[in-house]
């Protein structure tokens, strides 16, 4: 409770949480407000916003309800962002812990692999992966995670390097604990806080990467995504710019919300750390 109050003390954090809450409500309520296929034709094509109260944000080139697409797109963005970030953090934490804890050859090999992934631009990697394996939601998640795990891996390794010299790790060796158990049960949980601080940046980047992949036509074709909507609107950018602008605003707000909320979390834990 106390932690929550401290977290909500900064206006940035409040703004971030409000935006994320709105996004969450949109994602969860999408099937309630807009049952049925959001990709079905709902009215005349290219209806501008605020003309028809049944289609408040108008329709796109094929006469699909933009507001319905926006709601359903929130589901995709949120799901992909969270899943990709979770996967990236998991891979990064495990690789970083193994490298830092084992040291020697294992460390060298794992960190050179990390280097290799880090040198390739993340988006190109995701692009290549999706074009080879084929576009589907899980592939997109994997592709984004593949390009985002290196940061968490480096942070986790640095933290593990300092933790593994502590007495309690020695103590765990003295009672005969298996090295893998020491690494994942004693060391990893204590190395997590700075790694988790990266999560907001990764979620924001993942949402953007997903949108960019969809924009290039490499998103899951069976799902509405904001990136796909922007791409769709691009062809009629001169006559109906709102088709690109509306999902664009949604995207900007979401990334901003994730970032602000993440900053709030980091801020509040930093205070807690300095007090203890």
């Amino acid at each position: 409770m106390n932690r929550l109050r401290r977290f909500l003390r900064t206006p940035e954090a409040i703004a971030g949480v409000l935006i994320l809450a709105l996004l969450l409500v949109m994602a969860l309520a999408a099937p309630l407000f807009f049952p049925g296929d959001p990709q079905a034709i709902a009215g005349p094509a290219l209806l501008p916003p605020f003309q028809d109260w049944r289609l408040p944000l108008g329709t796109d080139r094929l006469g699909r309800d933009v507001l319905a697409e926006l709601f359903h797109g929130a589901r995709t963005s949120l799901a992909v962002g969270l899943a990709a970030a979770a996967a990236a953090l998991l891979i990064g934490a495990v690789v970083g812990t193994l490298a830092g804890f084992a040291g020697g050859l294992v460390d060298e090999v794992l960190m050179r692999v990390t280097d290799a992934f880090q040198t390739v631009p993340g988006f190109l990697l995701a692009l290549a992966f999706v074009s080879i394996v084929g576009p589907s939601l899980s592939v997109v998640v994997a592709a984004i995670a593949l390009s985002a795990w290196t940061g968490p891996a480096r942070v986790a390794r640095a933290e593990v390097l300092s933790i593994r010299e502590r007495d309690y790790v020695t103590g765990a060796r003295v009672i005969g604990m298996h090295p893998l158990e020491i690494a994942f049960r004693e060391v990893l949980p204590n190395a997590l806080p700075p790694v988790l601080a990266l999560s907001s940046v990764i979620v924001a980047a993942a949402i953007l990467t997903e949108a960019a992949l969809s924009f290039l036509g490499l998103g899951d074709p069976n799902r509405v995504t904001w990136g796909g909507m922007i791409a769709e609107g691009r062809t009629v950018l001169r006559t109906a710019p709102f088709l690109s602008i509306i999902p664009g605003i949604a995207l900007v707000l979401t990334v901003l919300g994730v970032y602000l909320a993440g900053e709030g979390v980091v801020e509040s834990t930093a205070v807690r750390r300095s007090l203890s």
Partner: protein
Amino acid sequence: MSVLAVSNLTKRYHRGGKPFAAVDEVSFDVGPAETLALAGPSGSGKSTIARLVLRLIEPDAGRIDFEGANFFALSGAALRARRARLQMVFQDPLAAFNPRATVARVLGDPLRIHGIAPRAERPRRIAALLERVGLDTGLAARAIHEISGGQRQRVAIARAIATRPSLIVLDEAVSALDVSVRGQILELLLDLQRQERIAYLFISHDLGVIRAVAHRVVILDAGRIAESGDARAVIADPQSAVGKALVAATPKLVRTSQDAS
């Protein structure tokens, strides 16, 4: 037969490109239910010896026989299993435990790892261990950071005796405790030694404490043994220069020795 026999143990480090011996041809042994103290100024190699004996670091030369078998011949699972018989208590009782752990987890780990008690029986064994070291059994559910320093060191001792070891290495185990708690912990250690016949390798720079608990003492200087012998005799009349300096640097010696006797 001795529990621990150390012969010609050597560990070299590199400092500024030049090799130097942190531990240089050190030999000693510890008998059953005996307390051998390792004393010496900072940097004399006391803690390095402790780490070598526990095989937390590997030596450059020498041999350690533990319970009659070559301790350096073990590796992997065999070494981990053997560790049940050779335990350690650290100086800082807060740093010695995972900050996220509870008392029950700390004491349950060795019971689980060495298959001493099945899961269902563990709470009872943990309670027995807590009672054995003079703690309330209700402490089991508490987090490590919620209990006092003295209680923590008792938990550390409980963890060390959980696997029924024949030797416990006490690395400055009472140095970080305040004086009243220190007396109680020393009392507990002596009591455990009498009842369970545990040998102690007692590492300390405090000759007053050593005089109170140790049977024999080895005084180290720059990685070598300066002198050794009966603890009271050596402290009463040190022969080596470093021994004399250590005794001279212990202002509390007179009072502490009266307390102990």
